[in-house]
């Protein structure tokens, strides 16, 4: 049970308060971007390239313009006149808004049709005739590195190959020495497939430019409204759109998962169209456009190696990565970290030597590399370390649970410095795995497995004991396009003791309206239900870097706590004044100050707030407001111990997930119900790449599963019954000891599932399976081993 310091009426931390936002969602009163309708609004649709690599010979818009309601067809050449045909990516690469001569991936934007209705815009899109000269694309990232491969980014001056950057970290020489001398060395090649966030709501916007005021109101699906405002100002400043004239409004968002961090060409074209025509322009992607053209996630080819002793001590790891970034590096990583937080890949284990390197390449695929429910490449790293740890256990013939227990960093060794330089804040990995093992009856399952194997049945148990790295981040290391990754909270308490709180983050379903209110309620004792939380309007909210990578609780949640503490300090002063005692004589109980030893002499927080407007001490600033910009001193390091049990049918390769136990440690818990909901969603998005999802391209660059008919997003039918639990190891540096949880399950689940399936197949000499592990892959592997 989570201990609560506040009453249910106040509902501070630890209460499973029902989500305040759900009322409007359940009543169909949500306000999503496609609900926004403005007078004289026009509609935009986008013509997209059928080819992965082609020169545009001609765009014939005659037939489109003849359709009633079609007003304009905007091409790259049109935008070029205003120098709006290209834009910077978050990784300081460049990206076309619309092409002037060459298309670089299938489904790339070619031109845009503006019309008076959505139907006319779609008809216009179908009527635009584009002729192309098709070229042979570069699809395989390994071939892209060949000296003979055509150079794709000829727009970049002096570019002579498809290499983007090289990154390396760790102890290269020491790693090589340990690997050369180690008793046991294991190695596996792994592909973390290209996947898509597939949020229920696709991307879209309404760009509303007012010529007379030179004002742009931009309603859009973005996880980071302030950052977007600054980016628009940087890209469009030269046409007179300066930052004070730009208002970005991110209304209700139907799922983001990282996919709504980037700036997509569609947003920019809509702005340009509204700017040129002088009317609001709405653009809403359809499902296939979203899947085919928006930023992908993952796509890391990893060679993972582990060196250790025969009795199970891990000595060193080595990871070599090839990162397929598609046409441009449009990842959403902090500037200094081209591979994001991949360097968490040394895992939860106590050893001091590792070396990691990555080369990024261009191919003719859509750009991206978004942090899909993952703190910048943590999913890739965790898959590599957790899989290779199992491979190591298999090699030495020791149970993977024992190997983990043997190598875990001990509770008392925190804060712990990783070989890659991170300072893990806190953790109790032994307790987490023990709880997971007890919950699932691990040793009982191992016995059952031995019996089933005798009968020729395939049963597997997989463990994943991951360490996460979230809450980006401390300003000394973390920025996006130069802007430091702090976040903010502003609290205004009205005279009657009710409050509004605004944040630089933006909920997309995480429940911020509830959890932020609970944090403030915890500190100030004002009931959470009386605290209105508002995000997403850059004209009203304080500046922040937005919500992704489980950063909101570690940053904005901390800002809320610190701002509330500033107010509590003021409340104490006012209470002392009202009760005519010194501040030291006061004692706090959630919601009120009373005089020590005289509990009848009391002032409630509501009375104190009222006094701050009506009867405050001379010289004190009136009102009850506070703002805080929180710059975290360190990242937070949530962890988890997951155990998955599968049975595999030999004849069909079908995989049945029998049990899945997830023990998470996200530090102090704000709302257990919301955490559980986050974990359920995250686990389902973890089973997705493990068993179902992958964006598949053929050698011509055609996406072969560009609809949800073929791209398999798991539904309730595919989802097992999740068994969740937690250990609580507070973060020592976070104001409320919280760590963040949203992404943990997505990060931790895939290797647990893969390890379970490989464990089931291991009696037949199978040591690794590439995700997504489909029945066909299983059947094929068993057939190759002569089992079926």
């Amino acid at each position: 049970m989570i201990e609560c310091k506040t009453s249910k009426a106040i509902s501070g931390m630890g209460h499973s308060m029902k989500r305040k936002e759900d009322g409007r969602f359940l009543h169909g009163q949500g306000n999503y971007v496609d609900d926004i309708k403005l007078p004289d609004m026009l509609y935009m649709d986008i013509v997209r390239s059928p080819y992965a690599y082609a020169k545009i010979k001609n765009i014939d818009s005659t037939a489109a313009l003849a359709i009633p309601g079609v007003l304009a067809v905007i091409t790259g050449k049109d935008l070029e006149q205003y120098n709006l045909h290209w834009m910077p990516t978050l990784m300081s690469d460049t990206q076309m808004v619309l092409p002037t001569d060459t298309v670089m991936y299938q489904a790339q934007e070619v031109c845009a049709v503006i019309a008076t209705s959505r139907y006319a815009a779609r008809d216009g899109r179908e009527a635009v005739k584009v002729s192309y000269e098709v070229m042979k694309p570069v699809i395989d990232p390994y071939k892209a590195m060949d000296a003979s491969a055509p150079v794709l980014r000829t727009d970049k001056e002096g570019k002579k190959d498809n290499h983007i950057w090289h990154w390396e970290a760790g102890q290269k020489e020491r790693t090589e020495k340990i690997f050369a001398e180690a008793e046991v060395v294991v190695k596996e090649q792994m592909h973390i497939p290209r996947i898509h966030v597939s949020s229920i709501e696709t991307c879209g916007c309404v760009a509303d430019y007012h010529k007379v005021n030179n004002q742009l109101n931009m309603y859009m699906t973005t996880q980071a409204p302030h950052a977007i405002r600054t980016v628009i100002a940087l890209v469009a400043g030269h046409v007179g759109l300066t930052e004070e004239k730009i208002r970005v409004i991110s209304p209700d968002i139907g799922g983001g998962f990282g996919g709504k961090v980037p700036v997509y060409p569609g947003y920019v074209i809509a702005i340009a169209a509204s700017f040129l025509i002088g009317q609001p322009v709405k653009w809403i992607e359809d499902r296939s456009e979203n899947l085919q053209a928006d930023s992908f996630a993952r796509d890391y080819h990893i060679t993972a190696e582990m060196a250790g002793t025969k009795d199970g001590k891990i000595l060193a790891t080595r990871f070599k990565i090839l990162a397929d970034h598609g046409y441009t590096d449009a990842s959403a990583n902090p500037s200094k970290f081209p591979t994001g937080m991949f360097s968490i890949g040394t895992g939860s284990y106590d050893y001091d030597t590792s070396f990691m390197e990555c080369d990024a390449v261009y191919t003719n695929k859509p750009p991206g590399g978004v942090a899909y429910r993952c703190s910048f490449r943590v999913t890739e790293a965790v898959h590599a370390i957790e899989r290779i740890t199992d491979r190591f256990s298999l090699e030495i013939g020791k149970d993977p649970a024992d190997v983990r227990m043997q190598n875990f960093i001990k509770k008392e060794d925190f804060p712990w410095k990783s070989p890659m330089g991170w300072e893990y804040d806190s953790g109790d990995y032994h307790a987490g795995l023990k709880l997971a093992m007890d919950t699932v009856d691990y040793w009982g399952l191992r016995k059952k497995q031995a019996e089933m194997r005798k009968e020729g049945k395939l049963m597997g148990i997989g463990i994943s004991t991951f360490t996460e790295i979230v809450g980006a981040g401390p300003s000394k290391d973390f920025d996006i396009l130069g802007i430091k990754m702090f976040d903010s909270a502003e609290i205004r308490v009205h005279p009657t003791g009710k409050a509004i709180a605004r944040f630089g983050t933006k909920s997309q379903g995480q429940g911020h309206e509830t959890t932020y209110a609970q944090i403030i309620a915890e500190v100030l004792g004002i009931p959470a239900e009386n605290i209105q939380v508002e995000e997403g309007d850059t004209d009203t909210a304080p500046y922040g870097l937005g919500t992704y990578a489980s950063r909101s609780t570690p940053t904005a949640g901390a800002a809320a706590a610190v701002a509330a503490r500033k107010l509590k300090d003021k409340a104490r002063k006012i209470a002392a004044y009202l009760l005519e005692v010194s501040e030291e004589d006061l004692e706090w109980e959630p919601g009120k100050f009373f005089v020590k030893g005289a509990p009848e002499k009391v002032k409630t927080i509501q009375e104190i707030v009222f006094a701050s407007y009506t009867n405050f001490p001379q010289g004190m600033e009136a009102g009850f407001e506070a703002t805080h910009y929180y710059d975290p001193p360190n990242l937070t390091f949530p962890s988890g111990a997951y155990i998955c049990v599968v049975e595999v049918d030999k004849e069909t390769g079908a995989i049945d997930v029998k049990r899945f136990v997830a023990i998470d440690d996200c530090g102090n818990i704000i709302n257990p119900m919301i955490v559980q909901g986050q974990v359920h969603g995250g686990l389902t998005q973890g089973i997705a790449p493990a068993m179902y999802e992958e964006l598949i391209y053929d050698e011509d660059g055609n996406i072969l599963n560009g609809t949800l008919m073929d791209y398999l997003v798991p539904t309730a039918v595919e989802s097992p019954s999740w068994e969740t639990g937690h250990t609580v190891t507070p973060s020592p540096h976070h104001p409320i000891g919280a760590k963040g949880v949203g992404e943990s399950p997505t990060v931790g689940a895939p290797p647990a599932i893969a390890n379970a399936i490989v464990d089931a197949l291991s009696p037949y000499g199978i040591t690794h399976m590439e995700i997504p592990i489909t029945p066909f892959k299983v059947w094929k592997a068993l057939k190759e081993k002569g089992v079926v």
Partner: protein
Amino acid sequence: MTTNIAKGFVVNHPIAMVWENLTNPEKIVNCVPGASLTETVDENNYKGKVSLKFGPVKAGYDGLITFLERDAATHKMVLKGLGDDEKGKGNAEMNMTGILTEEADGQTNVNVSMDITITGMLAQFGSRLITDVSNTVFDQFVGNFKDQLDGKEAGDNSISAGSMMGSMVKGIFGGNKS
């Protein structure tokens, strides 16, 4: 994506007649479902159209057909078809090799292999169907070709894979087949 189909069949006609029908563009095009000739460029190059429906996806290709080889001595022909979708939504390429061999009793063995490569919207939406549809189209082509050799009126050479899929689905789920 590329699909390969290789099939052989026997017809009850002498090799010279089969060869004449197979290598005559006007005659052969009548047998290709959904295809028509629009222009003769020269003796080896012809322009034509092919329309296909894959469920909801309609594809119409304007193409150039080129005889790369027509060797009457070895009875081997190689034909290349290149088509652009009429609306710029993709393209298709077909390389076909046909070899005739003489059988006993005036029969002729026809061996045809085709590589079909499609790019663009059809590849995106129809990739799972391409092999099945191509096989069906090929079988229909063979039927039409046989009919033509037999002197029968070539049947309706239009095809809709959508309606074909409909009948497949009905077949699977036991719907009313009438």
